[in-house]
């Protein structure tokens, strides 16, 4: 019985090994060319991710367990101290927000007077980082929220201190986020002090961004805060990105060499915020409401 089965397996009927290789090569090339042309194979990827995501969550489990145990063996006094600190922080933040509400209303009124519409108001979703390493030389991280929660590519991702990156691919149970420090990532920014517009490009190092497109006489100095300019439409305007730490004019070259340190704690945070920008511009006062909704309808 055993031998018969083995012999049957050994002389398996079916296409020869050469034919199988040819089929495999053709299938892979077809997939590759489809992806290279930018056509969407996302449904295939989403279906395959049902087999792959359990592996990712399994690899993440030790880190999650360690975090949970450290949380549960925290002493009472430490927790109490943390609680007090958080309460204080919350009070301070809340007071700041009181004034912010009034300022926001004032800003909306002023912009309406200037006939200048702009996007305001964002929704966020808290996602948790999975501790897996996708590729050693790319700054791409994985989080535990995906299309099930409405996450979609090109959404901005923040943490408590600033911009972290953007969603590059969302699968049903997870999504891949490219950090702003990835060498192939660029983010439109603006110097907060004087409104100078430029682009910050990732350097490949986790604590550095490059600003390669500013001339030698640009009004930038170490300590300047860079915020998102909102150009390009991916990132909402006004969020902190990085702080300039070096400005070296290069007299023999057209552009200065400028580096900045990201504000967000890219390599330390486990909780991230995925943002939905409110896509409706603030209505202008000069137009009648009925007319405007009509025009918006036509645009969409």
């Amino acid at each position: 019985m055993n031998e018969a089965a083995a012999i049957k397996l050994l002389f398996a009927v079916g296409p020869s090994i050469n034919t199988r290789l040819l089929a495999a090569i053709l299938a892979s090339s077809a997939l590759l060319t489809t992806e290279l042309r930018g056509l969407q194979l996302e449904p295939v990827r989403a279906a395959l991710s049902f087999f792959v995501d359990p592996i990712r969550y399994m690899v993440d489990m030790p880190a999650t367990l360690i975090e949970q145990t450290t949380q549960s063996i925290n002493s009472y006094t430490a927790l109490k101290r943390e609680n007090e600190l958080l309460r204080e922080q919350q009070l301070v933040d809340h007071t700041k927000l009181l004034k912010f509400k009034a300022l926001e209303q004032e800003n909306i009124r002023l912009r309406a007077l200037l006939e200048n519409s702009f996007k305001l108001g964002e929704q966020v979703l808290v996602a948790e980082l999975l501790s897996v390493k996708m590729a050693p030389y790319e700054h791409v991280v994985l989080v535990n929220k995906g299309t099930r929660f409405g996450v979609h590519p090109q959404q901005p991702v923040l943490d408590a201190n600033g911009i972290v990156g953007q969603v590059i691919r969302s699968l049903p149970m997870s999504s891949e986020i490219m950090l702003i420090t990835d060498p192939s990532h660029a983010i439109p920014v603006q110097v907060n002090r004087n409104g100078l517009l430029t682009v910050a490009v990732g350097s490949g190092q986790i604590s550095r961004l490059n600003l390669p497109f500013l001339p030698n006489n640009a009004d930038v100095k170490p300590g300047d805060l860079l915020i998102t300019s909102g150009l390009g439409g991916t990132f909402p305007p006004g969020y902190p990105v990085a702080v300039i730490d070096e400005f070296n004019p290069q007299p023999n070259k057209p552009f200065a060499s400028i580096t900045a340190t990201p504000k967000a704690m890219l390599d330390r945070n486990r909780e991230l915020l995925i943002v939905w920008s409110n896509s409706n511009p603030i209505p202008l006062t000069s137009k009648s409401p009925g007319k405007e909704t009509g025009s918006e309808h036509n645009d969409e």
Partner: protein
Amino acid sequence: MMNDSLGYGRIILSLMLAMGLRIIPLPSFLAGLNPDWVLLSLIYWSLAVPERVGIFYAWTFGLLTDVLLGRLLGQYALAYSLIIYLCLKLHKRLRQFPILQQGLFIFFCLLLSQLLLFVIKNFQNPAQLHGSFWLPVFTGTFCWPMVYTTLRYIRLIRPNN
């Protein structure tokens, strides 16, 4: 009941374990050294049980690795299918080889796979060649004896019944 001691379950489980090892979070200086565990396991199984693990397995697990690592779909599938084809063609000879010669063959397999991946990556967006891109080839070769003994042990476990 299966009338063979070696079930497919073991093969698939070991390959999934290899996929887990592929994305394990390591400090950055070690992450660049993490070898291609999935390919090493596939090579072992194709040499040990070529009538079971063939190009279909290689292609399927290649595709899953593509999704796992967020690559273009089909690049690992292509590389793995080619390598496993070579292994299947040469498995009778390779089994007789001493461990050193086998190691040399594994080295060339890993190198070929990495080369293919590099060509596809370059096609996608031309990147400069970083020397450490080739390091996993060497670590993979050094890890081969370990993979070999571990998977051989897994293969030869007899279920108690």
